[in-house]
């Protein structure tokens, strides 16, 4: 979850204001930082749970280019294009290179009927609220190519979507080289084309609760992957890949209104089969004997929130518990796990623009299986303590851009150390340090929505 953008978004009017006005608006989310492990190196973050703190997150930026037009009859149409760049910075690596992806590329329209209905078509991130401190969307977090409808009257809302994707994975996509039609040269032919179809539905409503606002939502996803046939590389022996499926059923309760940027979320989620790894991944391990993910299941409880005040104090928090069983028949399986993380970030706002925050977190992973490196049962745990002096435009832990210094101390137990190769510095010591400076911002983002919207 992100607070409403307060930054100065760049808006370029293309036509005179009023009916028929069109504009291009720029938005962005980004983060960048530099630091040291106090050993002369940049250091690497420590994590044992799937979702860990974001203090040492890799640099990332996305820029939203949003075209908006309001017609004379009140309809509003627009398009969103969001290129994103991740990975090391040129000024840090010397490599004139970047990993570029298109995170949004869709058009939308509202007001084409006399009802609060928005239609969209394209490629987009389709996300609900996040657990900011763990960089985690616990309930709805789709990356999809498709379309949907959003209905949003006064007190309730409905988001429905149908999307599809074919990941560049040998289980879903395969090309083989064959002789070209002319008999000279080769041509690639797509022989495996398994497209995952995902349908999602989120329905909810808001209600006043005294001076507060309560929002309840139910959510479901259905995933399906058709059957296919994979060819071996050399002899092109066919191997059947059976159809696969999965589902998510979840709910969210949110409440806000007791202060600026103050809210709390509770999520419950049950995932099965193919839906568990999300839309950008296929199960890599833990497959059933028929190479499907049938029988895998996940249960998740997560909370997050922020509270500003009373006085110059704020507290952001988050945490989750997750239990996961994969689809294979192994009873003592390292891939299965119960895991969790809790994180607290108290802040003391020294002035409108300066704060002193701290962050305390603990994460763990408990598996019924054996650590393959040691052949032993393991309970890896990491505790972190961070000190975060920050600068920001407004008196809030969610105000952005934020510039911060940070010192992060991580304590790993021995089981956590043994998750890393012996050559890794994190294997060598139970204590890791990181000192750095970080900037993070979000401004008029097309993807992030403030609390209180759907």
């Amino acid at each position, binding site marked *: 979850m992100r607070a409403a953008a307060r930054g100065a978004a760049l808006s370029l009017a293309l036509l005179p204001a009023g009916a028929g006005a069109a504009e291009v608006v720029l938005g962005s989310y980004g983060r960048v930082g530099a630091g040291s492990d106090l050993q002369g190196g940049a250091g690497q973050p420590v994590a044992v749970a799937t979702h860990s703190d974001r203090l040492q997150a890799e640099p990332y930026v996305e820029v939203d280019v949003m075209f908006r037009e309001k017609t004379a009859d009140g309809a509003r149409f627009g398009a969103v294009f969001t290129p994103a760049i991740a990975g090391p910075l040129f000024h840090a690596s010397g490599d004139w290179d970047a990993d570029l992806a298109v995170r949004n590329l869709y058009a939308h329209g509202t007001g084409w009927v006399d009802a609060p209905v928005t239609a969209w078509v394209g490629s987009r991130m389709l996300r609900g609220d996040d657990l900011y401190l763990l960089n985690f969307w616990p309930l709805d977090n789709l990356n999809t190519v498709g379309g949907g409808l959003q209905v949003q009257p006064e007190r309730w809302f409905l988001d429905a979507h149908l999307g599809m994707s074919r990941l560049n994975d040998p289980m879903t996509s395969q090309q083989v080289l064959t002789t070209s039609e002319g008999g000279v040269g080769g041509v690639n032919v797509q022989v495996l084309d398994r497209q995952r179809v995902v349908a999602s539905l989120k329905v909810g409503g808001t209600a006043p609760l005294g001076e507060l606002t309560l929002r309840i939502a139910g959510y479901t996803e259905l995933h399906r992957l058709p059957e296919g046939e*994979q060819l*071996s*590389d*050399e*002899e092109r*022996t066919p*191997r059947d890949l059976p159809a696969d499926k999965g589902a998510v059923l979840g709910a969210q309760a949110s409440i806000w209104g007791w202060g600026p940027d103050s809210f709390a979320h509770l999520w*419950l989620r*049950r995932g099965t089969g193919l839906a568990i790894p999300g839309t950008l991944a296929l199960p*890599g*391990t*833990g*497959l*059933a*004997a028929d*190479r499907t993910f049938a029988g895998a299941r996940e*249960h*998740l*409880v997560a909370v997050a929130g922020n509270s500003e005040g009373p006085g110059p104090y704020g507290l952001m928090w988050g945490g989750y*518990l*997750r*239990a996961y069983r*994969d689809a*294979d*028949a*192994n*009873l*003592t*399986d*390292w*891939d*299965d*796990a*119960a895991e*969790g993380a809790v994180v607290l970030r108290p802040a003391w706002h020294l002035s409108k623009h300066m704060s002193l925050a701290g962050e305390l977190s603990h994460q763990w992973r*408990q*598996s*019924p*299986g*054996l650590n*393959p490196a040691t*052949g032993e*049962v393991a309970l890896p745990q990491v505790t972190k303590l961070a000190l975060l002096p920050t600068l920001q435009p407004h008196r809030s832990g969610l105000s952005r851009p934020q510039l911060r210094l940070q010192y992060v101390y991580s304590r790993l137990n021995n089981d956590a150390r043994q998750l890393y190769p012996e050559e890794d510095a994190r294997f060598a010591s139970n204590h890791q340090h990181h000192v750095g400076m970080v900037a993070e911002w979000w401004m008029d983002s097309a993807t992030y929505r403030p609390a209180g919207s759907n």
Partner: protein
Amino acid sequence: MRARPSVLVRRAAARLLPLTLTVGCMPAGPYAEDPVITNHVEDWRDEVIYQLITDRFADGDPSNNWGETADLSNLNNYMGGDWRGIIDRVDYLTGLGVTTVWISPVVANVEVDAGIAGYHGYWTQDFERANPHMGDLATLRELVDVLHENNVKVVVDIVVNHVGQAFYYDINQNGQADIQTWYSTDGSDTLDMVTEWDPAFDPRRIQSFTSLGEAGEAPLGWVWMPEINRTPPEPLIFQDPLAYHRMGRVTDWSDREQVKLADFPGGLKDIATENPNVRAALIDIFSDWITKTNIDGYRIDTVKHVEDHFWQEFCPAIRDHAAALGKDNFLLMGEVFDGDDALVGSYTQPDMLDGAVDFAAKYQVFEDVFKRGQATTKVEALHQARQGNWGQEPQPGGVGVAPKDLPLGFLDNHDVARFLWDQEGEDDALRAALVYLLLRDGLPVLYYGTEQGFAGGNDPANREPLWPSGYDQDHPLYAHIAAILEARAAHDALRRGDLVFRWTTEHTGDEPDAGLLAVERATADDRALIVINTHPSQTSRSEDGDKALLTGFAPGTTLRNALPEAQARSWTVAADGSVQVELAPREAVVLVAR
């Protein structure tokens, strides 16, 4: 009818309860700790071993298929079989009637070398870590547990003679592995072109050789290719040059010392098993695998390539460890790949192996007699030789059966072409040979795929994946083996009985008894007469002058065939204790009292 709110609450609670229980914690699985050690073998002569290549038997867990191929033509790659697959196919094993499974080595291997994968398990990289292609330690424990629940025992293949190709000899000291460099094996001016990976045997140890001549022992160049798990072997002691003989590859197989000291073909580096630290490490390693998994025995690879005294320390130490755990009758049997029965038997002398894979019988009995129709007197001759060549008394602390009574007969295995390879689709010889293999004395070994009529040639053609067979339990050979083993299970005499030759012959032509073989096995309470016509084309009978097929059955006893065939026939023991038997070509009967 609408559910009452309390019902809804209870339903919701019932759904949430597992959530709260499972989210909070996930206790260690049932195979997370060392197992309770249990005993499952009363007498190894009761057992029938099914030898399988783990990678080829069944793929039960596609998640551990790291780079396997579905190409049935590429038998040198990993193909996906694993321990989970064996667990899933227990019914196939018990339906066949086998009682022990011999699985491939379980330790982590070099992934690939010269385009061939280490799917077979004989290229150790880490003696202490499970091969991730097969599963993890917990799955191996589960396999042993599930098989024990089904009264199937587990024998694990191990290698102490060598590791995978972990290093090269840097003969020219240029810091890289050269495919070609000059070398003199005797220090003379006569030079040969050799590869630094696998130079020919030099009893001085492989020497450095530069343009100015020899320069002492060649340093070892350790391979560091973690992407294919080709890194210095673990544990640490196997990264010490003194842990190896460093004499290059065997070139003269008739030289016993060279066979023991030189690298195995393929650049598999020969371990210095006389080094006391190495010896202690190997004892610890293979003691620990018993502790960790509750397995029932070891099949030891390349026994004759290891110096003899090693076995007299290794075997008692392993037996002591098993006994200390409470494991009785832990089997130590080994591969002495040689047709010389005396040589094979030499490794069953006191404090050595409980039994050995019977290569002499493979060649002299099953190939020469059953396949090629040579005189059945060869069968008796080899049997008598074994009585003298092999250990006469049970090993101290061993399995309680003298090695001479525990030969591990086999028709084929992963190192030789399958029995049917040169049989042009005919399986009569195989069917007859199976009767003798499974019902003679000792501990028979059945190579996987025999029951499906597999006919692959030499390695790797004899290592076919089993799954294309569909695990057909209606296959005639599957049914034939199951019937033989059912008879074996039903008759003590066919498992533990003394063996007496009742009929052998030099005749192989058109004589009335040509190809006839009869052995009788008897305990105090049970008796069976196994009669086989090994002749490929003639119906033969027990007739040779005044010679009679005598039995230990009482005169007047009516005999029937314990196998499903020829149930309508019966045989009556004459007053002199003899019985007349006539069999079609390659027909076999197992006569027991009706």
